[in-house]
């Protein structure tokens, strides 16, 4: 009986001691860990879903607690894909946007000009992995020698084509046009062989692409001036005019009425289209809204070609391309910039970068993410090679103005009214002068 009592006392004492230790240790840990919050601002759906499913936030929190002894609460702030830019602009202007921001280069450049972004140059200089980010992607968010965002991924353009319709039209596969004339030739063959089709091709996504095809550029980094007229710009308008009106490969209603080109491609009513890498999985992949069965045997893809104009050279490689996509930036108002940058580093880890790329058919932003299933996927491997030829958009707020003017002339003037290339070039110059200012423009 006495020993039973003794045992009970010992057990109780042990339990008490253990509890005290837990409470003390916990308290000590709590007292030691600094608590703070940062907010991640990105798109709803696919984008935030990836961050959550990949346990990026949890890994980051654990790492911060371990490395810096900081307990970080990561809040997420999202806006829908449709109208994301406007929503973010409003949040930025109102001062209610988060710390780590998912931005595109057009709005990013506007934020930079409004002094809303943090200069990331001191951070990237200390970051050993910075050398792994592709140079063209580093350049995409660079202005005046400073870096304002870090690319999360990249996207280039390609000519998607329906292999089944190409076969029906007697066109040889695999198909890689060397010049735009080859594209038109294939279009004319499709048109005569498949008269039931209302449209043969979707001619543009990044409107300025044919300028690069012709060896030209839209911006001269040497003097910081935008090109309003050049042989390449004339070539671009002439090419579009020919596609719409001379060869009638694209009815103007297609653009003006905004036909759903990706659906039409999936339905085999559009044989050829220029679009971004992401379409392959995001639009036509197994889990997409318009999956294409037997995708490898149906969906063909080719590099965007050069022009055939005499004297045109392509300094960017054999198959010039346009580079676009999204990046991570830090709000200038962020109170914890170090932690915000650490979160970006976490998101950009090679394993996450490769998985995001494979899941959504976006290209990796860093060369050491060419790993695992991404590297083994034939489409991703091929598409990543396009990065070599891709021209980044200038990280200037004037790019949006330049691009808006180009869209306006193409839609309102060339496509709707059927104006010639000469007239379109003239109108383009007028619009640019109105929107950007004559002192920032030049002819080449």
């Amino acid at each position, binding site marked *: 009986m006495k020993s039973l009592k003794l045992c009970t006392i010992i057990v109780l004492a042990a339990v008490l001691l253990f509890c005290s230790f837990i409470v003390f240790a916990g308290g000590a840990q709590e007292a030691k860990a600094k608590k703070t919050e940062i907010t991640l601002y990105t798109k709803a759906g696919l984008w935030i879903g990836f961050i959550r499913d990949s346990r990026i936030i949890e890994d980051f929190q654990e790492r911060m607690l371990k490395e810096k002894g900081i307990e970080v609460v990561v809040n997420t702030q999202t806006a829908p894909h449709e109208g994301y830019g406007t929503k973010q602009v409003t949040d930025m*202007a109102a001062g209610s946007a988060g710390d780590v921001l998912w931005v595109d280069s057009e709005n990013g450049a*506007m934020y930079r*000009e409004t002094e809303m972004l943090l200069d990331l140059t001191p951070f990237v200089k200390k970051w050993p992995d910075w050398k792994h980010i592709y140079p063209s992607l580093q350049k995409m968010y660079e202005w005046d020698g400073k870096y304002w965002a870090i690319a999360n991924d990249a996207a280039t353009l390609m000519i998607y084509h329906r292999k089944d319709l190409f076969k029906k039209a007697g066109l040889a596969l695999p198909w890689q046009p060397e010049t735009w004339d080859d594209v038109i030739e294939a279009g004319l063959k499709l048109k005569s062989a498949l008269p039931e089709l*209302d449209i043969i091709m979707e001619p543009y996504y990044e409107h300025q692409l044919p300028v690069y095809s012709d060896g030209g550029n839209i911006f001269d980094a040497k003097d910081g001036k935008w090109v309003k007229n050049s042989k390449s710009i004339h070539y671009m308008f002439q090419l579009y005019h020919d596609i719409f009106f001379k060869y009638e490969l694209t009815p103007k*209603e297609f653009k*003006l*009425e905004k036909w759903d080109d990706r659906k039409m491609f999936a339905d085999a009513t559009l044989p050829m289209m220029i679009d971004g890498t992401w379409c392959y999985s995001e639009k036509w992949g197994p889990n997409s809204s318009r999956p294409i069965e037997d995708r490898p045997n149906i969906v063909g893809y080719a590099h965007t070609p050069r022009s055939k104009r005499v004297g045109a050279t392509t300094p960017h490689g054999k198959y010039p391309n346009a580079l676009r996509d999204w990046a991570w930036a830090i709000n200038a108002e962020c109170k914890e910039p170090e932690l915000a940058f650490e979160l970006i580093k976490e998101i950009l880890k090679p394993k996450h970068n490769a998985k995001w790329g494979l899941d959504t058919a976006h290209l990796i932003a860093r060369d050491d993410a060419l790993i695992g299933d991404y590297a083994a996927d034939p489409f991703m491997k091929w598409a990543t090679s396009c990065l070599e030829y891709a021209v980044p958009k200038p990280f200037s707020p004037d790019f949006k103005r330049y691009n808006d003017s180009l869209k306006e002339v193409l839609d309102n003037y060339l496509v709707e009214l059927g104006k010639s290339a000469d007239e379109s070039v003239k109108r383009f110059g007028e619009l640019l002068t109105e929107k950007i200012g004559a002192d920032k423009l030049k002819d080449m």
Partner: protein
Amino acid sequence: LNDPIRKETGWLASLRGENRVLLLCLLPALILVIVFQFIPSVQTIWYSLTDVALLGKKALKWDFLGLANYTRLVSDRYFWKSVAITMRYVAISLVFRFAIGLISALFLSSKMKGRTVISLFLLLPMAIPGVMHAYVWISMLEPRAGTINSVLRWIGLPPQSWTYGRITESLIMINTWAGYVLPMLIMASALVSIPKEYHEAAEVYGASAWMKYWKIIFPIIRLPLMFCLIIIVKEDMDDFTYAYMYTGETPRADYKSELLSLYAYHRAFNYYELGYGCAVGLILALTILVLTLAQVKAGRLAK
């Protein structure tokens, strides 16, 4: 002024009793109106006199322009395009919404068989959430395989470009469909409130149906009719939702869907010209105010 007795006998005294309770009851609404209407309105007026931008250098350092934004409007061809489209939209919508609303109201207030079942269908546009209206119409207006063009083809008429060339007509169609219910309900309630003795007296004196409506019913319900006209014009003048849903973040090439409210929005949020966008918005607000006052005045004269 510092005399406490004088303060007691001043405005504070009037707060006692009933007035105090009234003021307390008014206070929540007053705060809401001040915070969400008065202050933004004053801000809008102020911004419209500046070149402040939503983003860019002019967001950081903007200048007071006086009336320059308003003089700019005079030579802004896109603004006038937008004015023309808005006027057309409002005028045609007014005719259709009013006419269909009136005919439906006459039907609802009649004693025809099947009235209850049909009235359920007539109320359907009001039952569907506003944001769904445009989506309901997407399949109807789709240029290649949409319902309307399919019907047109079936009866041997050429299909129309409802989402581009005829986008203004499409917006009017959607607006009419979604907007006839309110005037219908207002006019129907006015019609059923006419004492039956008036109808009986007209029948006794052998009045034709036309005479009955023209000489008895319409003069009695002219005030609700006037009210409907005011409501329709006010609603349509600053319409935004359908035009936005069929246009998006950038204006369409031909501006045929660019109602004034949408133009103000695009200027402020797509071109980031907040000051100029506010000037457009203010012109729109003033136009609505003037039209409303004119119509109220007309209503009084009619009375």
